[in-house]
């Protein structure tokens, strides 16, 4: 099942990138997508069930507008700090507990931390996140736990 799905996704991607429909190109596309999915079909789909992945994708798309708004705020904040002649920065390293159950939640939170105002993820392990903040007042949404709650909503109640 995962083999057929991977092969069709790979072939659609090939068509998208080449955009030409001559016989030799289509043939090599079919051949290479079959080869790639033979070698690595368990990487893309994995063992998790497809329905859960789909609901998570929809929840992630709902999360995107908030993330984009935070990115805009982050950049305005950074532009202010960069172009201000005195450079009002006061870097700190803060830790907080990691209570996520899935790798997906950790990855989304780590990348979101890097993209949102004043914070960059340094290290994630089973126990804690280590985060570098450029100024303490810039990291409010992280300290108040708003972002963690939003990412938990994507993760849902499943343990896988």
């Amino acid at each position, binding site marked *: 099942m995962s083999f057929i799905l991977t092969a069709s996704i790979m072939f659609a991607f090939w068509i998208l*990138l080449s955009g030409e429909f001559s016989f030799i190109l289509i043939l090599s596309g079919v051949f290479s997508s079959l080869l790639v999915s033979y070698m690595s079909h368990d990487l893309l789909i994995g063992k998790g069930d497809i329905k859960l992945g789909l609901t998570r994708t929809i929840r992630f798309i709902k999360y995107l507008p908030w993330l984009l708004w935070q990115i*805009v705020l982050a*950049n305005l904040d*950074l*532009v202010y700090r960069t172009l201000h002649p005195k450079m009002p920065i006061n870097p700190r390293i803060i830790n907080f507990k990691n209570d996520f159950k899935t790798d997906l939640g950790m990855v989304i939170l780590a990348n979101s931390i*890097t993209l949102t105002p004043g914070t960059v993820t340094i290290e994630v392990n089973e126990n804690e996140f280590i985060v570098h903040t450029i100024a303490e007042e810039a990291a409010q949404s992280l300290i108040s736990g708003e972002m963690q709650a939003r990412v938990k909503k994507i993760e849902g109640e499943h343990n896988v």
Partner: protein
Amino acid sequence: MDIRAIITGILLALGCFFIVVASIGIVRFPDFYSRMHPAGKSDTLGQLLVLSGLMVYEGFSLVSVKLLIIIVFIFIVNPTATHALAKAAYVSGLKPWKKEKGKND
């Protein structure tokens, strides 16, 4: 003048502004960890704006789909690369810069 060209111009100007600010930040900030901030954020938003400006100019075609693939790819990859750099520096024992003098050691 075409409305599409105007939107493209605005998006390109904003994107170039953010990219240049990221460069200035990388030159100006005092230590490695604070240099990561412009590298991770402003560069990502800058490329998003410039490439979506090109998408608006092109309209809906195969070229704009390719541009969208590049945008999404850099959006995932740029924070990840920054994170990998930060972790490598942290593991090697690089201490962050502090504002108060004498607290650094």
